[in-house]
């Protein structure tokens, strides 16, 4: 059955209409113009630099006004200051690797939490190097999810761990992969009052275009995000924001060093920085530029997709529907909530179907979502109001899977999946 209800934006957003059209026209342009001088003009100065017939021939490329314009639109989306800088990369992990190097420049002990994305934690640990550097990890997730911690508790624990372990750097997710909105501002402010906080990196992969926020208040030194989730550009494109006066020149110098020394292995980042700095190398690597165009297209639709209140209302409805089935919906306290809803089968990892089986079971009922091997589901609330039909569809899918969970002998769902896997 085709997908009727898409609730998997936290993993990969549905590509926005303008992003689709921009990418389509970019592909046509690439097919007809190849690497001609027109391509160079388009890339650097936007579609307005093309001859009139070409502009009319590729109407969806009108949204593209060059790299500087894209950076400006990204700054607006993140509420960043106009003098801040945005860098783009093919892979977010390369930006995280760079962020880890930035952190371990002035810092010797970085505070993280168990909300940190495991891949990013691994990258941080890889950068520990030979010097006497440490990572201090605080466990908060389970207690936040269960609603037993409020913002003041989280701030207090973070400040206490930071001071006790003599930390001097922070790496925090703004929203974790299970949808917990972390009180980043409060934690940074509280730590800054009692200790020397040398560098702050924020992982905004689940925040940008999902929740309202602003980087204008200079609470972090480097902010990492992507375009393929809530922005709905589909093509992965890593974004790095910086420009806080205290660290701008430091980041700039380290970026320049990393590019020249080959410390950053990302052709798009190298290429785009060379364009911005006007120092293009003659024998550079061939770069996939299509993510730039889909990103620009998705940003055009951003105001349409950023209906935060609707998403939050939809999230509440999803929780309500889940409560009418045997799925339980952990309810963190209000400031921690986002448009991501976690549902728990309550059976743990041993007796649950595998994630792919569970996911396929929902897909057969037209619902796309993320499933985990421990039996948990992650549902990303859409930006358009959920109507009764979709809610009924979701409820039916939840009940079907919960019926199967209650009665293993019931052949209604998982047992009919390819391979006949049973939990």
């Amino acid at each position, binding site marked *: 059955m085709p997908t009727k209800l898409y609730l998997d934006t936290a993993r990969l957003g549905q590509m926005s209409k303008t992003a689709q059209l921009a990418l389509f026209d970019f592909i046509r342009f690439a097919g007809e113009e190849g690497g001609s001088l027109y391509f160079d003009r388009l890339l650097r100065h936007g579609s307005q630099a093309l001859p009139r017939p070409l502009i009319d021939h590729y109407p969806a490329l009108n949204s593209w006004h060059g790299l500087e314009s894209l950076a400006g639109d990204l700054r607006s989306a993140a509420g960043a200051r106009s003098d801040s800088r945005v860098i783009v990369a093919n892979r977010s992990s390369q930006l995280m690797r760079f962020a880890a190097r930035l952190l371990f420049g002035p810092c010797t002990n970085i505070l993280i939490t168990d909300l940190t994305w495991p891949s990013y934690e691994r990258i941080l640990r890889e950068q520990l190097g*030979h010097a006497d550097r440490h990572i201090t990890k605080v466990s908060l997730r389970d207690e936040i999810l269960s609603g037993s911690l409020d913002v003041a508790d989280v701030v207090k624990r973070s400040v206490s761990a930071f001071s006790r372990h003599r930390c001097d750097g922070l790496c925090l997710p703004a929203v974790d992969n299970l949808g917990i909105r972390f009180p980043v501002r409060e934690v940074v402010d509280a730590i800054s009052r009692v200790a020397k906080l040398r560098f702050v990196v924020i992982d905004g992969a689940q925040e940008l275009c999902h929740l309202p926020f602003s980087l204008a208040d200079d609470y972090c030194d480097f902010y990492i995000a992507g375009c393929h989730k809530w922005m709905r550009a589909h093509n992965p494109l890593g974004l790095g924001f910086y420009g806080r006066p*205290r660290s701008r020149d430091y980041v700039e110098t380290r970026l320049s060093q990393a590019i020249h020394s080959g410390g950053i292995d990302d052709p798009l980042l190298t290429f785009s920085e060379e364009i911005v700095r006007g120092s293009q190398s003659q024998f550079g690597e061939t770069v996939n530029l299509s993510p730039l165009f889909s990103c620009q297209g998705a940003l055009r639709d951003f105001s349409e997709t950023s209906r935060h209140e609707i998403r939050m209302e939809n999230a509440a409805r999803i929780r309500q529907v889940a409560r009418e089935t045997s799925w339980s919906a952990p309810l963190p306290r209000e400031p921690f909530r986002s448009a991501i809803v976690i549902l728990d089968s309550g059976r743990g990892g041993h007796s649950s179907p595998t994630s792919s089986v569970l996911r396929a079971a929902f897909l057969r009922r037209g619902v796309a979502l993320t499933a985990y091997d421990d039996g948990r589901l992650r549902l990303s609330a859409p930006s358009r109001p959920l109507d009764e039909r979709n809610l009924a569809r979701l409820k039916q899918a939840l009940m079907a899977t919960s019926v199967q969970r209650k009665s293993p002998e019931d052949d209604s769902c998982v047992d009919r999946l390819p391979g006949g896997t049973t939990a």
Partner: protein
Amino acid sequence: MERNTNSHSGGSWRSRLPILVPSAAAVVFSIICLVTGFDLQVLFLGWLVCLVLWASLMRLLAETERPTDLLGIPFAIAKDREMTEQYKRIGQNLISASLRTDSIYRMLALTRITQLADDVEMLASGNIVFETTESWRLAYEQLLRSPGLNMYRSVALVQTANYWQDEPGRRSMQVNYEMQAGGSLSVERIVILADRFWPAADTLPLEPLLSWIDEQHRHGIWIQLVRESALLDEPDLGVDFGIYGNRAVGIQELNPQAKTIRFILVFDFEELLRAENRWERLSIHAVPYRELLDRSSD
């Protein structure tokens, strides 16, 4: 005379230590065993531990004891092959010098040899003095690149506008940048600035020091600044020094005209603790350069 008496009494106390400590431990342990009713095996084990303690203390004492008699010196130094080589060389040349009988020669030679003995005494106390910047720089680089050195904390007492901006200074900075970028060393620096280079009304110091500081900041060195006037009540903090991990302390001595007289490297743990204490006290007065950058943009 009084000094000798004290030293003798101290030495006597030290010599009794290996007997007193294990004996006291054995007695206390025996009493505990009797009161709490441990079996004989445990008692025997306890006495064995005391015996090992006695042997270790004896060995430690033998290692730290400095022989003063002429015969004891070659025996004590014999276990260090490199030092024995130099000991032989110096001894042989002292014999040659003593065979010369010219009275003027003896006077001049004895003056020089006394100076040499003073220098060796200084080295023996863990201090190495460098009279030229270049020889200092080589030792500095060797220390920074030494395996296991992870943290270098430096206090720069800036009395001239071109502080460490000459060629040796620039090269030393390059080593700082290289090590910091490579992730093998964390460099932190507190810059004490004479008030004329950082007027009270200014958020940031004046050029050319500002560029010197900013360059370090850009390379990831954690820089903190403090005005010299803020340290008036704690004059002992106004020292130009560096702490090399937990290995050594380097001190730069300046004359009243802010010219470097000498550099001293001290390989002594007590001195290291004193330097760390000075660093902590300085940190209270210092402001991170990054904070000043934030303030300057407001």
